[in-house]
């Protein structure tokens, strides 16, 4: 029996291989991937169309960076849960993302297990 896919995930990263890695790696039955975006501006457009409940968000991206996108997404939907996935591993960056409304932070590079654990925490938060 198929699990009900009650969480809608949008993946935001300017790296194609990272988007595909997250897409392939996530194996939570309740999660359906509804969109892939290459920068913050694309993510905002995709949000209009797909209404995700979960987002994985890179920080360093062209057009619009992840911090600004987090702020705008949370402004549109305060219930959205955003996992920032970034190589910027310093505390100040993580704190800034959390202050803007992100719900979690995962450092690149990551294993499949680390990604899925972080997504489960995000869902349960």
């Amino acid at each position, binding site marked *: 029996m198929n699990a009900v896919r009650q969480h809608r995930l949008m993946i935001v990263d300017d790296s194609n*291989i990272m988007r*595909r*890695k997250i897409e392939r790696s996530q194996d939570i039955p309740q999660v359906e991937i509804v969109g892939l975006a290459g920068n913050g501006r694309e993510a905002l457009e995709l949000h209009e169309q797909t209404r995700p409940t979960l987002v994985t968000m890179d920080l360093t991206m062209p057009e619009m960076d992840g911090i600004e996108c987090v702020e705008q997404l949370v402004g549109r939907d305060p219930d959205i849960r955003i996992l920032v996935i970034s*190589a910027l*591993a310093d*505390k100040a960056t993580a704190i800034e993302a959390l202050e803007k409304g992100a719900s979690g932070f995962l450092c*690149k*590079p*990551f*294993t499949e297990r680390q990604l899925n654990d972080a997504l489960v925490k995000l869902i349960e938060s």
Partner: protein
Amino acid sequence: MSLQGEIGTFVAAVLNYFDTAVQQPAVVGTPYLALGKAPEVFDYTGMIRISGKRKGVVYFTAPKGMLSVMLMRMQETDMSDANLRDLVGEVANTLSGNARRDFGRNFIISTPSVVAGSSTTIGYSPDTRPIVVPIDWRAYHANLVVCLN
């Protein structure tokens, strides 16, 4: 932090990338100073530029074959130029991330950039001496180059 400690930060970033993303460890060779000629540049290079307390460039340069096999290990089937650039850019991203974490605000670190082509010249200040850290993985050889004044 000493120069040796700073180099350790960049080496740790590269090794962690192989351990975590590629899931197969790389081996660090004996570092050496590139005296008399510029360090070898391979097919794809991901780099960050640093200013502030120190100035210079740090880059990871690798041959196409190595990056293609790394992508395969990551279950990626598309070995296009765009994905090879993406991969070397992600390694540079981790160099940037570790540097920001370990060095603090005295260092200003650029957004990573990627260049392709083994005939590329990487510009660096003449008052710096590039330190080359060989990175060996499977049968492949790449270089991490740290060039800070």
